[in-house]
């Protein structure tokens, strides 16, 4: 199972918990994680990725083991630690926007 940390700023905008546990079938990538998240928590659709382009929103970033992977290929496989649940996939909202 994969652990995903959800930005606290989402608050009541979504029904997702602060830490979601999801299943990803196939290769574990940022986009695959986001796809699975949106299936489990449909109100997340369009909030973390643009509805039109499906690109990560500019004020959202992805981290794994304290490393910023926001600008890596969102379809590239993530480390095995994420797939095993040892390390969470962190979705972070920038200190801005409020």
């Amino acid at each position: 199972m994969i652990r995903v940390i959800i930005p606290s700023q989402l608050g009541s905008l979504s029904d997702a918990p602060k830490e979601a546990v999801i299943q990803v079938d196939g290769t574990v990538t940022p986009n695959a994680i986001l796809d699975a998240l949106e299936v489990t928590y449909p109100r997340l659709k369009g909030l973390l990725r643009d509805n039109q382009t499906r690109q990560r929103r500019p004020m959202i970033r992805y981290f794994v083991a304290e490393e910023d992977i926001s600008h890596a290929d969102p379809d590239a496989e993530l480390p095995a630690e994420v797939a095993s649940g040892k390390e969470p996939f962190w979705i972070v909202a920038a200190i801005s926007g409020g």
Partner: protein
Amino acid sequence: MTGVRVLVGTAKGGFILTSDEARENWDISGPHFPGAEVYHMKGSALNPDLIWASQPNDWFGQLVHRSRDGGQTWEQVSNELRYDGETGTHQWYDGTPHPWDFKRIWHLEPSIHDENVIFAGVEDAAMFKSIDGGESWQELPALRNHSTGDSWQPGAGGLCLHTILQDPRDPDRLYIAISAAGAFRTDDGGETWLPINKGLRSDYIPDQDAEVGHCVHNLALHPSRPDTLFMQKHWDVMRTDSAGELWTEVSGNLPSDFGFPIVVHAHEPETIYVVPILSDYYHYPPEGKLRVYRSRSGGNEWEALTAGLPQENCYVNILRDAMSIDTLPECGIYFGTTGGQVYASADSGDTWNAIVHDLPKVLSIEVQTLS
């Protein structure tokens, strides 16, 4: 209850102000969506319990909310507003091509003909329609794909479609306005769009006869005369009596003809209201005096309405969607300021009172008349 419900969108939430017909004592609820920018809230003319809210968010994009109980509870509806097909480019401020990019819904316009139909005017400028009460959205792409679309440029607030007017005689006729492309009309429900900007003059356009490029700030019409439209342009107050075929200036004796909102009295089709602002640089009222100007002659001759409004040291702005009317027998006029005040007049503008003083920056005001 007979009375009014004032829907206030602010930079940090939505507020609902309710009063009986006297409009003296107000019940204030909110903030709804606390902390969130609420660009616009508007109720259905067919079902006053049905209210819509646009909540754009810098982090998480656009959200759309619907209430079926007059704003007591809210539910999220679809936020999937996707441009139809290839998006192409419009012009950026410096004239270079800039990709069309969805940013927010500026204006939600519930149909006056069908409760399940709602229109959304968005930035970057496009028109969307839902025919299933917000469960899904479809773009009316002919507007964005108009032959002039690649030449549209944003105004200071962005390339926004901010005004949608409906012709009560004909559900297929709509008017919209885009800053800074101009006004457009469709007579076939959005299949085709006609720029309606003849007669407008704008110093910032080298070609004064250009079909598009005018920074229209707001449009208004009276339902009894839907071929007559009034316009507050970036500079100039204008009117047309030919459904936009030709505009004439009616700024007359206004102290400044720059401003944002314009509204028409509920029962007097030739009585109109504007709030003059000093200029596009200052964005506050001339002389620090907050004055609504009323013309009872459809323009040109204007009187200042000042009773109850601050007449010194007032440096707020009134945004384009932040003025509205009720339709009670003695027409009420309402506007909100960037300083967080909401002013109301229960006597057609003769006298004013602040319903609230200290809300966040007011982005929009819509009024429902309840019976």
